[in-house]
């Protein structure tokens, strides 16, 4: 089955069938990651540029490993080492990279819409690795992959997502994806971190996280940015932890086998207690592991989904 999308800008523009195709493709790639020789020739001769305007370790490394295991040539460019600091525009930076004929640009940018902007102006495929507070599609896909792997399904599950909803691209991509695959989403967070109308993206919003957690099949905690403490949005991390943190007590309200997820990097003792983060229900490192397979699937599918001569 061919894949119709040239770019992966967000989950918003993917159909349910395309999402399932990505997850199924990731399933078939996952096994490669546990071989002794972790490399297949699938994308040999393809060039992938990881263009990161924001700091990222996990996502960038994951995309890089994904590309390398498919035998693509992957190059990392981070904003601090690029000409961006010299005042070059985003379009010029991207056009200069494109002049060297990459097949795919994997891009992270602090401005919502930045990958969409480049997709309108460049010929190569763009994969959004996170844009501002907008979307982070590969994260939502690896979350879904992990849920499906652990619980066998997504349809009908209750998924609680808790934390800073306003500034989270993870929550938006997850809302699109979970709704398309038939899950029920509950959201909770501090009153200052619930953006207007988010329920219209398909969720029930709670202010008491216990209500969101109660009976949930999955509890996904969002990272709180530590620098928000003491400014207008948040009094202290201490209070945040008390009212919006996941701990063994409130986790008991969830289903007995509920999954505990976190997109990382975690603030232990803030949004998630260490005993929960390391506890038997956590699948946080599974998420990271699955991220490689999901990103291999994305790179493969936007490349046309055909095996190169090898």
């Amino acid at each position, binding site marked *: 089955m061919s894949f119709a999308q040239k770019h992966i800008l967000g989950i918003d523009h993917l159909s349910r069938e395309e999402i399932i195709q990505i997850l199924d493709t990731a399933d078939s790639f996952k096994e490669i990651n546990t071989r002794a020789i972790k490399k297949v020739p699938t994308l040999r001769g393809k060039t992938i540029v990881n263009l990161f305007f924001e700091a990222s370790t996990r996502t960038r490394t994951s995309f890089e490993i994904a590309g390398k295991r498919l035998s693509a040539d992957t190059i990392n460019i981070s904003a601090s080492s690029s000409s961006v600091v010299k005042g070059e525009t*985003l379009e010029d930076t991207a056009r200069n990279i494109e002049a060297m004929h990459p097949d795919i640009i994997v891009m992270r*940018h602090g*401005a*919502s819409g930045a990958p969409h*902007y480049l997709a309108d102006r460049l010929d190569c495929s763009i994969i959004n690795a996170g844009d501002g507070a907008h979307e982070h599609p590969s994260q939502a896909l690896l979350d879904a992959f992990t849920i499906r792997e652990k619980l066998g399904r997504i349809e009908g599950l209750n998924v609680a997502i808790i934390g800073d909803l306003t500034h989270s*691209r993870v929550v938006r991509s997850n809302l699109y994806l979970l709704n398309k695959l038939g899950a029920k989403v509950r959201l909770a967070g501090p009153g200052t971190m619930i*953006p*207007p*109308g988010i329920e219209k993206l398909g969720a029930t919003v709670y202010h008491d996280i216990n209500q969101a957690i109660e009976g949930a099949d999955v509890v996904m905690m969002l990272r709180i940015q530590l620098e928000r403490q003491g400014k207008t949005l948040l009094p202290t991390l201490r209070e945040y932890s008390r009212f919006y943190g996941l701990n063994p007590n409130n986790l008991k309200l969830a289903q007995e086998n509920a999954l505990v997820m976190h997109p990382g990097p975690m603030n232990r003792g803030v949004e998630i207690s260490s005993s929960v983060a390391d506890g038997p229900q956590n699948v946080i490192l599974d998420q990271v592991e699955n991220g490689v397979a999901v990103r291999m699937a994305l790179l493969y599918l936007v490349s046309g989904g055909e095996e190169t001569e090898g």
Partner: protein
Amino acid sequence: MSILIKNGRLIDPANDIDGTFDLLILDGKIARIDKKIDDSAEEVIDASGKLVTPGLVDIHVHLRDPGLEYKEDVISGTAAAAAGGFTSVACMPNTKPVNDSLPVTQYLIRKAKEEGSANVFPVAAVTKGSKGETLTEMGELKEAGAVGFSDDGLPVINSELMRRALEYSRPFNMPIISHAEEKSLVGDGVMNEGFVSTELGLKGIPWVAEDAMVARDVMLAELTGGHLHVAHISTKGAVDIVRQAKARGVHVTCEATPHHFTLTEEAVRGYNTNAKMAPPLRHADDVEAVRAGLADGTIDAIATDHAPHHVDEKNVEFNIALNGITGLETALPLTLRLVNDGVIPLQQAIALLTCGPATALGIPRGDLSIGAVADVTVIDQERKWTFDPETSRSKSHNTPFGGWELQGGAEVTILAGHVSYRFES
């Protein structure tokens, strides 16, 4: 020089005239208006089927002159004005340097007279350098030709200073024009706050940022008896506040832009930087409220907030794109849309583009009284056309209306008895 305009439907709201009349211009003045004038004239314009109105007046324009001429200057900006049917524009002081002084005000007026295609009535700054610290020399600026005071782009944050500005300007009969945004609520927001900003992951600006500042300024006008003019009103709440203030007899006037009565925040989708301006495009309910405010007379004027920017300042990520859009060449057809949509009658639409804005800022234009300066616009209400920003007379092309099918436009624009624009198909 004489021009005879024949057989047009002459609408002069200031003099309550609407009917088929001939109009004779002699020596730059309105000489005669009559059912039939057979005098010979150097130019005869057949305005059959057309409207003949006072030259349109736009009281909110950024000419970017002096200092930012790469975006616009007096020559290009007034050429765009003439093409849009405007004969007079009031230009905002956020130039380089800021127009807070006699020489800049004089420069603008002189350059417009010598090289421009429209009258330029400068709006000078409320505070020196628009820094919000000390008042400008309002008396002298008025003598030089300024028609109002504004720190446009910035509100006067200090409430005491705003009070003093209204008090000080009052004896000079000059309005203080408020760019009403409570800056702490605007924060680093880049579009209207609501479902669309949530979905796009863009920082929102809540309606209360405008309402709160309009409320403060209206109360200060009430306290001082000064004349407050609210620029580019865009929220339901702000329209309500002005409506109530007018009912109480507060000396407050206000204007609305074509984009705020035409577009909603939905136009931002796709991260369209030509839909980014301050105040931002609002919710559909706000657009309805602005239209209602135009219809019931709460809003005195339609003004464009013509804000040219270079393509390099718009062809960037949404959150760093500069605020503002051009508007001089689309204001008339977008206003006529309101007529076609049944929001306001034609006479009122013309009033909102002529005597309404002229009266709000005390500009001696906007009517066709005998003996008045002959600023006249002949309007073809029927012509259908597609707006191509590349053909704009403005130096800048930052408009969300590119490619729009529009109806109506200036046929001939006459400035003090001389043709400043003529439509050529």
